[in-house]
């Protein structure tokens, strides 16, 4: 049973937004909504500056508040892949999951009225492909794969580099790992 995770190597991210464009095309995300985004954060005073590019998406948490707070069991943790997914037929658009998610990565699809979010492109993954964002990521900043496979790109990246998760204190146990949160290599 694969243990799918994403590693975001921030050193390699240039904020080009190819991931966003690919995600929107792949998943037909409605205008003005996004399943993923890239944050640019700058600290310091000229000329002593530091800059971070950070892609954010659903963390596919192992301890997912969205799932616990969903009254209809539309949001669920997929047993086979570990992905946090959403069954649109069960969703009533109550937005409890949006309120519960500490990462602000869910939105209501204005066309369907149901909640929508990153699926790690599960439809591509079951077909043996990578998620659209990782496939197109020009700097290879987004790495996707099976953490249980020691030879996978994600395992190797995490073995070689220290990594962190976002909002660790929330106790959500995210499946998205960040290498070098602050962009400047030492």
């Amino acid at each position: 049973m694969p243990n799918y995770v994403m590693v975001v190597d921030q050193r390699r991210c240039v904020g080009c937004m190819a991931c966003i464009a690919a995600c929107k095309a792949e998943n037909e995300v409605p205008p003005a909504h996004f399943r993923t985004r890239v944050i640019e954060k700058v600290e310091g005073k000229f000329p002593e500056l530091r800059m971070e590019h950070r892609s954010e998406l659903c963390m596919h948490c192992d301890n997912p508040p969205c799932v616990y707070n969903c009254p209809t069991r539309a949001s669920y943790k997929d047993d086979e892949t570990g992905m946090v997914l959403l069954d649109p037929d069960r969703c009533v658009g109550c937005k409890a999951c949006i309120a519960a998610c500490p990462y602000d990565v869910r939105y209501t699809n204005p066309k369907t009225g149901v909640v929508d979010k990153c699926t790690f492109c599960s439809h591509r993954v079951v077909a043996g492909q990578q998620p659209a964002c990782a496939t197109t990521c020009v700097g290879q900043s987004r790495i996707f794969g099976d953490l249980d496979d020691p030879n996978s790109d994600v395992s190797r990246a995490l073995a070689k580099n220290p990594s962190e998760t976002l909002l660790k204190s929330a106790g959500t146990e995210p499946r998205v790992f960040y290498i070098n949160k602050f962009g400047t290599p030492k």
Partner: protein
Amino acid sequence: MVNKVCSRRNFLKGSAAATAGLAAISLSPDKFLVWAEEQGMVESTLVPTYCEMCFWKCGGFAKVINGRVVKLEGNKLHPHCYGRLCARGNGGLGLLYDPDRLKTPLIRTGERGDGQYREASWDEALGLVAEKMTAIKEKYGPESVALFTHGSPTAHFFPLLKAFGSPNVAMPSAAQCRGPRVVAYDLTTGVDIGSPERLDMVNSKVVVLIGSHLGENMHSSQVHDFTEAIANGAKFIVVDPRFSTAAGKAHTWLPIRPATDMALLLSWIHIILKEGWYDKEYVAKYTNGFEDMLGEFDEYTPEWAAKETDLPAEQIYETARLIAKNSPAVAIHPGRHVTWDGQDVQRLRAIIILQAILGTWGRKGGIYLPTKAKLPSVPPPKAYPKPTQKSLRNGDYPFPGYAGVTNAVRESTITEKPYPVKGWIISGVNPMAALPNQDETRKAIDNLDFLLAIDVMPMGTTMMADVILPECSYLERHDAITPLVGRDLRVAIRQPAIEPMYDSKPAWWIARELGLRLGLEDYYPWETYEEKLEEDCLVWDVDFDQLKKDGVVIVSDTTNPYIGPGNEPVFKTDSKKIELYSEALEMEDFDPLPRYKRNEQPSAGEFRLLYGRSPVHTFSRTANNPVLNELYSENEVWVNAEKARALGLKSGDYVKVVNQDGVRSNRIKVKATERIRQDCVYMVHGFGHTSKRLSRAYLKGADDQQLTTKYKVDPISGATGMRVNFVKLVKES
């Protein structure tokens, strides 16, 4: 032509599918088609092609279901992208399905520029074009028709113009962009650094970016190599007045005073010569004129350069040391948009001299040698006629490069010297946005008998044309096969994913139909472009069927990128070596070695106007693209945070930018940031569109080119230095 892709799931038939189908009709067409494919009701095909969202021309596949393109993916065989498309590449769908596209031929009914047109049939429009071109030919000669072009359409309209009898073709990608670099390499090594630039960044220990904002300048394979270099621990030295994305990843950021880059380069050369850090063996073997250099750089001490560049002298020395100590595994990027201040060929010469004395050309981690494999040239079906009048495309510039000097053609159009230019054809370019000083461009257009535009979108200059011919997008047409010269030699094909939409046509069809109407049928022995491509492949010994199927074919996989036994570099100069000292320049009374000539600086209260790129846009042409517009819909003017406070401005405020000649921009948002020096402001090029038919981009942001009324011509190449305008910000009341 296409690969069949099996449906992922093939269940749910009959009534179940019908019920689900009812639920799905509320979805937009793409989602419905993807759903239908999943249900096994329709099949998808993957059409290999290459991108035209920018000039990098990455390879990819268009996924097509029921005649609709639903997704674009990269082609791993294509060395310009390694299978990874940038935002613009993914945004190709936005161009294809932009409702603002030109849909039918248009003939002007009002005044030039007032946007009044009537729809016309292709027959009528092409007939009118042929009539107008013939009238100019009869009255003034065929040379009086000029072509401004860029990208894939060039392969169709350049031959048409040559067959018509005019040599006057010019590309803003040269004189307004890369031209001085081409000229500098031609003078110094005789071999271009290529596009993609042959930088071996993946093996570099140090990479120098001087005026190159990689990451914002989104050239897929090069950005890929850039991030590989970062992951490999290469140290980046980034010279930029702005804390660019690349500067954010740099070991050393040198926030240089704008327009003083030459001082830094000369000082680096000074230090390397003085400390004896140059590669003595390499210099002796592969360069010419080294002795003439000695003593010529003595004055350019780091202390002197510190005053010019506003960088600490120690930092100048330390970076020189870092570069020298890691040579030859040092990639010094020569930049791409290099038309800055009219001294551009000389500045590029300084960069090439550095590359040479450090022994980086042909060395691992420096500049790799190109493959020696070559495609035989395909001769035209019939020899082109010899023009009776001398070409005016190069003006009087002694080293104009190969792509014409647009501003020289514009000048001749205004002055009618050496002879009148009465017809312009523009394809794939928007001269109002590409050339500096819009008044001069306007004046030239006013002096034309005929302006023809061939375009996909109703861009500013296009909407001034007398006849507009709607070209279909790159996803709906064949184009020339592109040779990909790098570590090896490959070829890539563009083929239509779907039939042309509306009443649009491929450029090859437009060129051919015009050719037939101008009596040039001998140049078009083929009926479809696919026939011509197949013929080309026969000449090249490339398997056409494989190319159609895979999108990319490797012609030669043997390559030896580094200098070694039996693999010597080739320099196509008179001396067959790198000409550090240029006798060619000396003969034309230019400095044979680069010298420092101080550029004018803005006075207190003024800023130098700098411009650059967003990673999600190309030139002025993508601002209206619905996919890309959503990611970056209007440009902002970057102002140093402290300066902004002093001016009472904060991020999000709207201002007008006013230049030294009193030209006022459209309103533009302020970005108050620590990421820029106090003596300059910056904006992304290609906004502030005035074409009302661009519904998303119309009057969004400011047009840097409108503010570029002043320009400095490089006397060597004729290219226009455009970072010489000084501006103030005026708060919108």
